[in-house]
C-alpha cells in the first residue's frame, strides 16, 4: 500500500467526544466566536451520556432547603475517601446548580416540585435530595438538550469518526489524526487546543454497563502524547446491573430504584445492607427499615436507608452475600421496589412514572414486572474515577494545549464517585475546559503538523487489514475482558494482578499481529483491532495502579489488604510513559486542603 491520503481540517479548538462533557465544552468554546470541531465516535446524541438514568447532583435546595454547596462538597469528599482533587470538588459543588438551570434555559424539562421548581431526588451518599432528574432518563434529557442547542452554535460535527493519535509540535499539541467509519478515509485536524471528552474504559471488563465505544481512547491518547494518568485503580463497579438473562448481564439498573425506596434482599429475604454500615456513615444511616422509609418519603428527621450508602460499599456487600451462598439463582441478589405497595396506594403507577425505563427494560428483556416482583441484580463495571491528570481550574493536562473533562479526567471523584455527580461533572468541567481551551488556542495559534508522524500513524492503523492469518481482534478483546474481570475486578489480590500484567503483555503481542478480513469501509473488525491498543493501555494502567495501592479504599478492594491504610491515605497514584516506553507508576502526595475547605469537612462531621 502506498502513502495513505489524508483530508485536512482546521479548528482553533478540537473536541474529541460528543457526550455531555464534549458538547458542553464545544458550546462554551463556540460562544466566543471561534472555530470549533467536535469528533463523535458514534452519531450525534448517541454517546454514553444518553444511558445515564438517575439524575444530576446540584445543591439547589428545592426539596430540602438545608442543602447548599458546602454540604455537597463535604459529601463528595467523603464519598471519594478524601483522595479527590479538593479544588475540583469545590468548583463542582459551587457551580452545579447554575449548570442545571442553564440546561432548563436551553429547553430541558426536569420533573417538577409542587411549587413548580426542579424536583430533586435522593441518591447514595448525598445527605439531602439533590438529583435533578427526568424519571430515569436524565442522561437522554441532558444530551438531547445540549445537542439541540449545540447544532445552532456554528460547531462542525464529525459523526462516526475515531481519533487514532494526538499530534505534537514539540511539547504542545498540534492536532489529531483519525479516520471516518463510513469510508475509512484518514483525516487530520489541525488545532492548537484539544479537549478530550471521550468517557471511560468499561469495555476493558467483561461485565459492564458501558457500550462498545468505551475503550479508554482519551486515556490512551493522552498517555501516548506524554500526559499523566491518575487514580486508575479506582474503577466503579455499580452495585446493580442486570444478571439474567445472560445476554443482558451488566446492563445498568439505576440507583434511582433505591432512591425511590427499593431495598436489597438476599435469598433468605434478609435486608443485608443493615448488617454492615461503615463508621464514616454511622450517624447518617437509618437505624431500622421504618426510619429508612420515612427518609424516602421526605421526613427531614430521618436518616437514609443503608441501600443508599456509597456504591463501592453496596457493591461489596452484594459480593459478600453471593460469595457466602446467599445469592439469587442467577448469581445476584434481589432488588425489590414492588414492596412499596405496603406503604402506598397506586404504587404500580408510581413505579411506572418514576422508573419508566427500568419498567420496560425488565419487562422486555427479562420478562419481569418490577411493580410486582423483585429484580435480580449484581455488580457491573460502570465508571472510571481515574483518568487524565488535569489542573483543577483549567482542566489542562500535563501536556500543553491538551485538556480533559468528564469521565476521562481524574480528580473530582477520588476513590469513589457518588451517583449523580457524573452528569453535573460533565457540564461543570465541560464548560471550564471549553473556556480555557479557547484561551490557550488564542494565545498559541498555528502549530505545525509533522507529516511523517501522520504517515506512520496511518500505516500502523492499516496493518491489521494487510495481514492475514493473525489473531481475531474479537478473540483478543474477549480474552482481555475475561482476564480483567477475573484478576483486576471487584476483589483483587497481588498474585492475580501480577498475572494480569503479564497477560496484558502477551495480549499486546497478539494484538500487534491481529488481522481482519474485508475492506476499510465500515468494518467493525478493523475498528475493534484499532481500539484494542487503547484498551490494553488502560488495562495495564488499572492493573499497575491497583497493584501499587496495598490497601482497600473506595472502589479499590484488596483481599490481601482488606483494611484502609493511613500510609495510602493522602497520595494519588500517577502513571506516565517513561523514557524507555514502559509505564511508570508514582505515588504523589495530595496538597493540603486550604483552611476554609477543611473547616467545612470538620463542620459536616
Amino acid at each position: 500500500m502506498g502513502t495513505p491520503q489524508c483530508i485536512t481540517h482546521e479548528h482553533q479548538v478540537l473536541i474529541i467526544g460528543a457526550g455531555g462533557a464534549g458538547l458542553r465544552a464545544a458550546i462554551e468554546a463556540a460562544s466566543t466566536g471561534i472555530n470549533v470541531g467536535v469528533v463523535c465516535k458514534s452519531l450525534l446524541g448517541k454517546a454514553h451520556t444518553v444511558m445515564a438514568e438517575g439524575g444530576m447532583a446540584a445543591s439547589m435546595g428545592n426539596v430540602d432547603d438545608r442543602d447548599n454547596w458546602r454540604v455537597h462538597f463535604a459529601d463528595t469528599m467523603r464519598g471519594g475517601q478524601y483522595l479527590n482533587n479538593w479544588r475540583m470538588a469545590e468548583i463542582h459543588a459551587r457551580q452545579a446548580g447554575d449548570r442545571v438551570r442553564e440546561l432548563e434555559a436551553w429547553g430541558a424539562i426536569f420533573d417538577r416540585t409542587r411549587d413548580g421548581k426542579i424536583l430533586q431526588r435522593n441518591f447514595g451518599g448525598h445527605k439531602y435530595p439533590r438529583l435533578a432528574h427526568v424519571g430515569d432518563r436524565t442522561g437522554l434529557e441532558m444530551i438531547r438538550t445540549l445537542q439541540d442547542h449545540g447544532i445552532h452554535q456554528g460547531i462542525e460535527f464529525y459523526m462516526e469518526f475515531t481519533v487514532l493519535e494526538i499530534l505534537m509540535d514539540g511539547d504542545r499539541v498540534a492536532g489529531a489524526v483519525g479516520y471516518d467509519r463510513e469510508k475509512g478515509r484518514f483525516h487530520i485536524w489541525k488545532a492548537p487546543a484539544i479537549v478530550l471528552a471521550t468517557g471511560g474504559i468499561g469495555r476493558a471488563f467483561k461485565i459492564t454497563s458501558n457500550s462498545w465505544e468505551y475503550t479508554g481512547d482519551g486515556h490512551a491518547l493522552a498517555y501516548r502524547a506524554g500526559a499523566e494518568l491518575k487514580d486508575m485503580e479506582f474503577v466503579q463497579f455499580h452495585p446493580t446491573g442486570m444478571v439474567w438473562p445472560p445476554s443482558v448481564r451488566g446492563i445498568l439498573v439505576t440507583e434511582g430504584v433505591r432512591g425511590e425506596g427499593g431495598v436489597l434482599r438476599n435469598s433468605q429475604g434478609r435486608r443485608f445492607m443493615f448488617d454492615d454500615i461503615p463508621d464514616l456513615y454511622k450517624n447518617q444511616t437509618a437505624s431500622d427499615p421504618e426510619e429508612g422509609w420515612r427518609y424516602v418519603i421526605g421526613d427531614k428527621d430521618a436518616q437514609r436507608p443503608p441501600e443508599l450508602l456509597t456504591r463501592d460499599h453496596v457493591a461489596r456487600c452484594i459480593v459478600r452475600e453471593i460469595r457466602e451462598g446467599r445469592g439469587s439463582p442467577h448469581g445476584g441478589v434481589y432488588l425489590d421496589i414492588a414492596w412499596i405497595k405496603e406503604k402506598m396506594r397506586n404504587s404500580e403507577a408510581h413505579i411506572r412514572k418514576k422508573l419508566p425505563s427500568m419498567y420496560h427494560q425488565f419487562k422486555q428483556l427479562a420478562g419481569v414486572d418490577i411493580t410486582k416482583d423483585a429484580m435480580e441484580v449484581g455488580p457491573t463495571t460502570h465508571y472510571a474515577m481515574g483518568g487524565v491528570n488535569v489542573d483543577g481550574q483549567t482542566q489542562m493536562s500535563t501536556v500543553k494545549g491538551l485538556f480533559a473533562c468528564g469521565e476521562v479526567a481524574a480528580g473530582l471523584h477520588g476513590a469513589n464517585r457518588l451517583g449523580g455527580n457524573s452528569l453535573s461533572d460533565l457540564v461543570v468541567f465541560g464548560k471550564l475546559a471549553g473556556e480555557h481551551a479557547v484561551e490557550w488556542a488564542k494565545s498559541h495559534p498555528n502549530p505545525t503538523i509533522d507529516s511523517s508522524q501522520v504517515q506512520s500513524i496511518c500505516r500502523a492503523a492499516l496493518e491489521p487489514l494487510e495481514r492475514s492469518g493473525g489473531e481475531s481482534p474479537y478473540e483478543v478483546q474477549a480474552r482481555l475482558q475475561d482476564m480483567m474481570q477475573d484478576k483486576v475486578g471487584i476483589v483483587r489480590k497481588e498474585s492475580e494482578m501480577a498475572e494480569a500484567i503479564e497477560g496484558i503483555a502477551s495480549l499486546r503481542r497478539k494484538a500487534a499481529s491481529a488481522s481482519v478480513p474485508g475492506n476499510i469501509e465500515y468494518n467493525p473488525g478493523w475498528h475493534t483491532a484499532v481500539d484494542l491498543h487503547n484498551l490494553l493501555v488502560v488495562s495495564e494502567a488499572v492493573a499497575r495502579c491497583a497493584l501499587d495501592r496495598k490497601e482497600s479504599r473506595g472502589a479499590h478492594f484488596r483481599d490481601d489488604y482488606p483494611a484502609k491504610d493511613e500510609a495510602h491515605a493522602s497520595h494519588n497514584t500517577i502513571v506516565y510513559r517513561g523514557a524507555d516506553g514502559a509505564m511508570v507508576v508514582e505515588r504523589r502526595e495530595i496538597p493540603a486542603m486550604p483552611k476554609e475547605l477543611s473547616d467545612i469537612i470538620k463542620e459536616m462531621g
Partner: protein
Amino acid sequence: MGEQRQATFSVWRGDHQTGKFVDYKTTVSEGMVVLDAIHQIQAESASDLACRWNCKAGKCGSCSAEINGKPRLMCMTRLDILDMTQPVTVEPMRSFPSIRDLVTDVSWNFRVKKRIKPFKPRKPDAEDGTWRMYQADVERVQEFRKCIECFLCQDVCHVLREHHKHDEFAGPRHFVYQAALEMHPLDVEERLGQVKGENAIGYCNITKCCTKVCPEHIAITDNAIIPLKERVNDEFYDPITKLFRIFRARPKAERKD
C-alpha cells in the same frame, strides 16, 4: 427456549449499490436478543459485518433495523418472540440510503432538525433567572422528549418510504420534535408556519404506522401530529380567527395554555 440450539439468520450484506441476504448459523440461548446474535455472527464468521449499536438497552436508538420485515431495535427484540424455526431476516432500514450491511445513512434527519427553529424561552419568571412550571403542564412534552431518535418512525412513514418526499416533508420524528417545542410551556417561538410550510405536515394522513413502531411508545399521531394539525388549521384556515387577526395581531405567548 431453555437449552442452546442452532438458529439461522438471513442478514443483508451489501453496500450503497448492491447487496443480498446471506445465511449465518449461530447458537442461541434463553433471553437472547437479535443484536446478540449479530454480535455472535461478527465474532464467529463475519468480522466485517457492519451494524450500529451503543447502549444495548433501548436508550440510544442506534441499532434500528428491519427484522422479519418489521422495523425494530435489534437490542430490544428477543428471539423468543420470533419464529425461530424459520431463518430470521435482518436488513437495514429501507427508507434511508444504504452505507454497508445493516448501516444506513441517516444524516438527512440531522439536516432536517437543524433547520427547525431552536427553542426560545420566555423571560424568566423569578428574579434569580429561573422559571416555574408545573408537572401537569410538562407531562405531555416529557412524553415527546422520550424520543431516542432511532428513526424507525421515519423508516415506516409511507410519505418517506413509498413517496420519497424527503425534500419536502419532515417526517414523524420531527413532528414530535416540533410538538415538544410548540407545547413547551416556556417556548415563545412562532412555529406553525414552518410546520405547515417547510415541514409539510399536510402530507401526513394519520395512518399511525409511526406510532405502531415507536419503541418508546410515544403516541406520535394522537399526541403530536393531530394536535399540530389542529393548531395549523386554527392558525391558517379558521375563517373567524382570520377575520379576528385582521383587527388584532396576537402574540403567541398569550395563546399558550
